[in-house]
């Protein structure tokens, strides 16, 4: 009899450690969100390289367990495996490594050939500051508003980097929001692109960009670093790594290093970043009213960035000669979701003129957006950190 009682007692204790016993409705909601991410990644192929790790990370982060038992499994429990991997997010050293890879895989030729496209990348940063103003009005503190605003930069690593410094408690919500909307760029942008352009503007054919010499390509990262980092030293971590990666690519003598940076290194960091950001969305810390507000502001910031990019192109066209006019459909690419935003310019342009290929032109503002959002993050850091 005693043995049976002891067995029952042990089983009862064990039951109290299981996820079934500790589960709350919040965990179930988050697990469902994680499954939606995985579904979107596999079925719709929306940013699968990001959504799969994040979606699975959400599942990992929301497995309920007895926190009082000090099992050291949770991402917020100091010394646990996930906590150690999460330090790259908390301390902000994953995003610069991702930028190194982005630099090593990005061809800035379109930008160098037609440098006026850089300005579109600057205009799209209105999304960041528009969202900052909205977040302030919704009751967030300036540092929190800055972290939320950066979602409008459409740049996941930058958003994570800045939020880890300005408002670490919002990291999960900001990161998930940024990556979700980056994945949903094909859904968010086209209606506003059509709304803000006339049929005549949509079929503007742009000049074929000139061929860019190797010397110019090598000069770009060096000059780019010196000019932007001298202006905004607080953005050095991101800008430095971005331009360094690009020099590895363009120098022509460090092929192995460039391949590592844009291949195995960036893949490894993407896996760790996505998984740990996903796992950081534990229901207890993530399911709050603030998260809903952040999602709403994030959507608005993408809309503002898209609209300001397009409107700025229209403004530029007022001052450009007839043959030099820019198709406003590349304005949306000022947000730095590379290369999705540029791809949307291409597909939308082809809808109205099947012979009008805008991809190479849209890549200019697209990569300028990466630089612009890193500069904007540096400014935010300077003012709010």
């Amino acid at each position: 009899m005693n043995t049976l009682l002891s067995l029952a007692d042990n089983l009862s204790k064990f039951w109290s450690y299981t996820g079934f016993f500790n589960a709350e409705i919040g965990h179930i909601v988050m697990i469902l969100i994680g499954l939606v991410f995985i579904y979107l990644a596999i079925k719709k192929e929306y940013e699968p390289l990001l959504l799969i790790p994040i979606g699975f990370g959400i599942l990992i982060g929301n497995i309920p367990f007895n926190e009082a038992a000090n099992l050291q499994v949770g991402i917020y429990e100091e010394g646990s495996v996930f906590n150690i991997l999460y330090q790259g997010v908390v301390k902000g050293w994953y995003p610069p490594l991702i930028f190194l890879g982005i630099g090593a895989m990005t061809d800035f030729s379109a930008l160098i050939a037609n440098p006026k496209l850089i300005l579109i990348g600057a205009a799209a940063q209105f999304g960041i500051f528009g969202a900052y103003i909205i977040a302030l009005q919704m009751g967030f503190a300036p540092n929190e508003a800055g972290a939320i605003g950066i979602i409008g930069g459409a740049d996941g690593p930058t958003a994570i980097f800045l939020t880890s410094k300005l408002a670490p408690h919002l990291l999960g919500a900001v990161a998930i929001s940024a990556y979700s909307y980056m994945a949903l760029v094909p859904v968010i942008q086209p209606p506003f692109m059509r709304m803000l352009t006339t049929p005549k503007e949509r079929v503007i054919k742009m000049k074929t960009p000139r061929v860019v010499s190797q010397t110019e390509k090598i000069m770009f990262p060096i000059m780019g670093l010196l000019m932007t980092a001298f202006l905004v030293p607080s953005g050095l971590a991101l800008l430095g790594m971005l331009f360094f990666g690009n020099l590895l690519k363009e120098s022509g003598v460090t092929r192995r290093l460039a391949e590592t940076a844009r291949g195995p290194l960036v893949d490894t960091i993407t896996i760790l970043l996505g998984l740990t950001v996903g796992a950081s969305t534990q229901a207890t810390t993530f399911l709050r009213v603030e998260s809903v507000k952040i999602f709403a502001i994030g959507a608005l910031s993408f809309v503002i960035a898209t609209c300001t990019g397009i409107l700025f192109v229209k403004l530029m066209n007022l001052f450009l000669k007839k043959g030099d006019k820019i198709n406003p459909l590349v304005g949306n690419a000022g947000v730095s979701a590379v290369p999705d935003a540029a791809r949307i310019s291409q597909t939308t342009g082809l809808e109205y003129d099947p012979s009008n290929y805008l991809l190479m032109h849209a890549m200019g503002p697209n990569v300028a957006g990466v630089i612009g959002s890193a500069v904007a993050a540096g400014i935010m850091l300077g003012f709010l950190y």
Partner: protein
Amino acid sequence: MRYIKQLLFLFIAVVLFTACSSEIKSTDWVINEVMVVNETNFVDDFGQRNGWIEIYNTTAKTQDLGGRYLTNDPDNPTKYAIPRGDVLTSIKPHQHALFFADEMPFNGTFHLNFKLDPTQENYIALYDNDGKTLLDEMVIPAGIAADQTYGFAQDGVKHNEKGNIIATTLKRVTPSSNNAVLEENPKIKALAESDPWGGMLTITSMLVVFGGLILLFLAFRLSGSIAKSMTQKKVAQSGTLSAARSHSHLSGEVLAAISAAINELKEDQHDIESTILTINQVKRNFSPWSTKRQSLRELPR
């Protein structure tokens, strides 16, 4: 001439940006807080109460105070040599070291060989390892009350906006800790008060973003123009079809059509293949860093 003008504009822009950033540089070490008479305050590790001097590391890196000199005598800069090799003199970023002015140097690294005199003005200075370079100095006026300290309200901030030294009698005694207790980020607090709508920050930031990217735009427009003219010169000198194009200003499509027609004509006429067979060795340049073969080693047998 146009290039020179653009270059000049860029240079002026860079100089202006650089000039705007000049301001008073702070030193790496600051004599931050001093207590001359200690009656009921901080007790040292021997249970004694003495005057003390707090030194603050103003930098974002860990620095070693070992080997530097503290003195209360302007004519003797090397009066007390802070011992080298003590791990405790390695001061973390924005942290403090506390020295007791008890005239008991054999009590340990942080016990000085001089005392502070409450009846007169006290001069304190910190010298670099060479005993000549002055790192920081402070004059504590006579008459500071017992258990009160003299120093800077904000750690390491010595000057106000006009460049005047702002040392004063402090409201709180804070040995080895921050003189100002930061309950919230002052930058954020000030911004929330001065710019509640965020409009000014937005305008400022967008100006900077546009400024930075306009600089890039100008730089690449300039370098692009130079590159284009250099390429045109090279092509013109080469005497090739491209040179003809650059002279005739025919479009690429027209030239492609002409080239295709000429090629077709030649194809119809020729009876000898243009392929060249060679026994010359094809050179491939490689370095040990770019080839796997060079980095493979034989396995030991």
